[in-house]
């Protein structure tokens, strides 16, 4: 639990941090450090330079611009979870943030950090995926936007380049007739700890029928994944429990479900369906 030797810089500005990343190929950016520091202490990851952006001003805001929320790089899980704007406009993300880690982790770790870390069993990754969020990445050469659907590449691997910082997540707000929800089975049972399997759903109802839907899974595969088949099967139905259960049956279509200490492929596939259905039902309830 003693990391290898590394350099550390507490950046005073985003430009300073971006320059440090650009100048040092072995550098890694840190916000709350809730994932990075344990990996370093286990010597599983040994950056030559840690660029701490925790003191950079202006990155800790949740901005509500009417139809979307912009969550800054330093917004803690606890802030995301307790924000009225997030709770009403992107409930699945608020719920996922509330179920991330424990109290200490939620008070220190950041929503953007968890998303950039791209853990296969993280919570907020599924929420931003289902919500159709956009990731804003910055480097010394400029800024680019990455759709959530393109952001999660593989286990602990995102579309971010080594010299980029995820400075903001832009989440479209669910409007009238829409609702979203997130739920999981946690490793210690209930909703505690990493997800054995979890799902986020966004549903728009129109005239008693499902007009649009988006469902994302976490915990079951190598990365958070959109369950496109479920959404496809759901749209046009009346959103009844039977319709939802039927649609949820397609949860793991195209997903390579991984067996681990917490469940067999069969069990996790089953859980994916259960939690997809539960999230959809909760989203429909929130929409109506």
């Amino acid at each position, binding site marked *: 639990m003693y990391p290898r030797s590394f350099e550390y810089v507490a950046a005073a500005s985003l430009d300073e941090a971006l320059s440090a990343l650009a100048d040092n190929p072995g550098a890694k950016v840190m916000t709350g450090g809730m994932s990075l520091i344990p990996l370093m202490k286990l010597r599983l990851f040994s950056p030559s330079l840690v660029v701490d952006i925790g003191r950079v001003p202006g990155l800790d805001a949740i901005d509500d611009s009417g139809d979307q929320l912009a969550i800054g790089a330093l917004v803690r899980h606890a802030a995301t979870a307790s924000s009225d704007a997030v709770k009403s406009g992107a409930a699945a993300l608020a719920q996922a943030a509330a179920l991330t880690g424990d109290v200490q982790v939620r008070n220190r770790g950041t929503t953007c950090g968890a998303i950039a870390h791209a853990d296969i069993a993280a919570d907020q990754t599924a929420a931003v995926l289902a919500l159709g969020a956009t990731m804003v990445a910055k480097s010394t050469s400029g800024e680019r936007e990455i759709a959530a659907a393109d952001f999660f590449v593989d286990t602990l691997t995102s579309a971010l380049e080594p010299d980029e910082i995820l400075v903001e997540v832009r989440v479209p707000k669910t409007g009238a007739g829409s609702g979203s929800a997130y739920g999981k*089975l946690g490793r*210690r*049972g209930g909703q505690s700890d990493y997800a054995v399997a979890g799902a986020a759903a966004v549903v728009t109802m129109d005239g008693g029928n499902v007009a649009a839907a988006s469902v994302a899974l976490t915990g079951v595969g190598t990365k958070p994944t959109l369950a496109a088949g479920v959404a496809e099967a759901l749209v046009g139905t009346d959103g009844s429990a039977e319709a939802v259960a039927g649609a949820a049956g397609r949860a793991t279509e195209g997903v390579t479900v991984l067996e681990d200490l917490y469940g067999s492929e069969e069990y996790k596939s089953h859980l994916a369906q259960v939690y997809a259905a539960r999230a959809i039902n909760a989203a429909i309830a929130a929409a109506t």
Partner: protein
Amino acid sequence: MTTSVSAMGGIVRRKEDPALIAGRGQYVDDIRLNGEAVMAFVRSPFAHARINSIDTAAAESMPGVLAVYTIEDVRDLGPVLAQVPVGVLRPLLADGAVHHVGEAVAAVVAENSYVARDAADSVMVDYDPLPAVVDMKAAVTGTDRAHEGAESNVLVTWFSHDWWPGVFELEDHRPAIAEAKQRDDVVVVSQEMLNQRLIPTAIEPRAVLADWNHGYDRVKLWSSTQMPHALAGAVAKTFGLPSNEVHVVAPEVGGGFGAKLNIYPDEILTVFASKDLNRPVRWTETRRESAFSTIQGRGWVATATITGTRDGEILGYELDGIADMGAYSQNFTVAIPVLGLFVAQGQYDIPLAWQVACVQTNTQTTDAYRGAGRPEASYYIERIIDMYAAEIGMDPTEVRRKNFFKKEDFPATTAIGLTMDSGDYETNLDTLIADVDYAGLRSMQAAAREEGRYIGIGVGTYVEVCGFAPSVLAEFGFGWDAYGMPTSFSGSGLVRINPDGSATVIIGTGPSGQGHQTTWAQVVSDRLGIDFDNVRVTHGNTAESPTGVGTFGSRSAAVDGAATYEAAEKVSKKAADIVAHMLEASADDIRFADGGAHVAGSPGHKVTWAEIAEVAYKPHKGPEGFEAGLEAHAVFSPGNATWPFGSHLAVVEVDPETGNVEILRYVGVDDCGNRINPMIVDGQIHGGIAQGIGQAMFEEAIYDEDGNLLTGSLIDYPIPTAGDLPAFELGWTNTPTDVNPMGVKGIGEAGTIGSAQTIVNAVVDAVSPFGVKHIDMPLRPKRVWDAIQKARG
């Protein structure tokens, strides 16, 4: 001024807590000596391999590295001493081969922890892997050996009728049970069950700091240990010193649970390095390292069988099991199943045929972990009795009641010849049943099932044996003879009235959170009428305490507590003579209370402890010819262990769609005789239940077939947290013991011994409508779901 606090039943806040809560408690890693160096270990990535070579050159040449040691440097010191040396003893560093993943192969000493780790990582070891013995059953039947050249992996098999030949002459109940199985009116219920291996997880990992002073040729050692005196003995024996030249201090110890009840290689190697380098040397276990450098617990697979009539009379209980000892034998290793045997039949007066084979495997050593054999034994009897109740369609509380030892049976003799001091199991169970409205709970359960909810109610009873005695058990291995410290696990207490009238109490325990400073102060305050705030209790220090055994086996209050009680009695006798002289009264009429002493019947005719002390230390003011000073030491060797007991109940709800278990209620009614500080006793039960629930629900050390530990970090080895547990509801019955003057029994392990099976009984009860009869722990959702699917077909 605080008045004296009643020894029995006084709830006072713990003296220990202000420092601990404020973060000012002093643990080993908080102590700093000038010139300290730090040790780190090179650990084996293989479960079983020959070592071809160890290249330490790169490490030795790194700046800041002071030394790199291998077995060649320390072989002369011998292996780690073990109290029950059956099996292969652990070498200080791997000697030609490694036998479990994480075994220490080389030790690096450097200027700081970072350099030490870097250097350890640069030691090159060339291994030649060998087949690993991991599975317990394969260890018995297979041809691979955990240690090359061993004739068998089975070290010893314990039989209930022959566990200590020559001391107990016992009948083998197996033929009678076999005969009973032939009867037409009996059922035979049998189940193989895993009592999975656990990783003890103290909040404070182990730590040691050794300082060999060549000027005095004396060594001082701070260690996070439960047995400072045994450690002093082991160091003295290993280095050829008299034990009085080894001073061991166990300062604050942040949890032990039996895992700090061992002599460890790091304790010996830091002393060696300190002697060699002429500098203090520290080693602090890291959290990740802990799963490899500290003993583990449990790890049994066994088939339990009950033979009984259809109306609930048990005619025989059999257990055939294998217990995993791991790669090396340490302190008690092979004796742990014997502690299970002590309580094998639970609260039931039934024939017993029990055998457990102890096998060596290429995994970490197992040894005492909270309950040590008794949770395993209690689990098997309490699970199979529930299965028997289900088979004959009788309420599980009724089957238990029908087979209890009766109140009038006590002192009762168990099937293996031990005598249980006192018990009233029926009253205890009745109290639980009344407290929870058991019939009402069953109605609620039935109503919930109508609504499609799966609620389960589980009951578990237990009898525990603790404060090990009688003295002759030392000859079985329950003593510290191997460490050069012969003892019968007697208790030690010294009570000293200081010249200012305050009291210092020095005890031979090594607590790790049990509140001894508070409890002992209550005992002494009560006996001597001295202000509670004026009593200071010290422990865990071999230079202060005349003798000591440590803290384990729920022994401290019943044994060291009794010793202190008797020391206080001796002090009060001498003090009575002094006071009689001062007040011109008869010593028989002197009473101690309210911060001093008075003459019986005339409370105004009194002196304070400060006044008594002044006379005690000025003989010319005292009675003719008395010896100055006022202190007494007592050693207490009880004639028997104490046998606490209890009944627990859990209400759970299972989500059949996911297998998730929610604990709705947990109720315990325990009986440890008289309670000195009920709040502290509650705390012990709370922690014990939490650990039992940890085994039932969360924890499992999983080794793959190559012997790699897959659950070596807290990410994959979830321990219970407050957030995972319901509020425990506790009740009590009180059946005092007569084996000690306070009538107290141990309570440190009872909660753990009573709880795992209570949870499993409840969960199986919840899913019994699906046809599920048993689920192995831990009851993670996947296992519960799998069991439901399997039962549904």
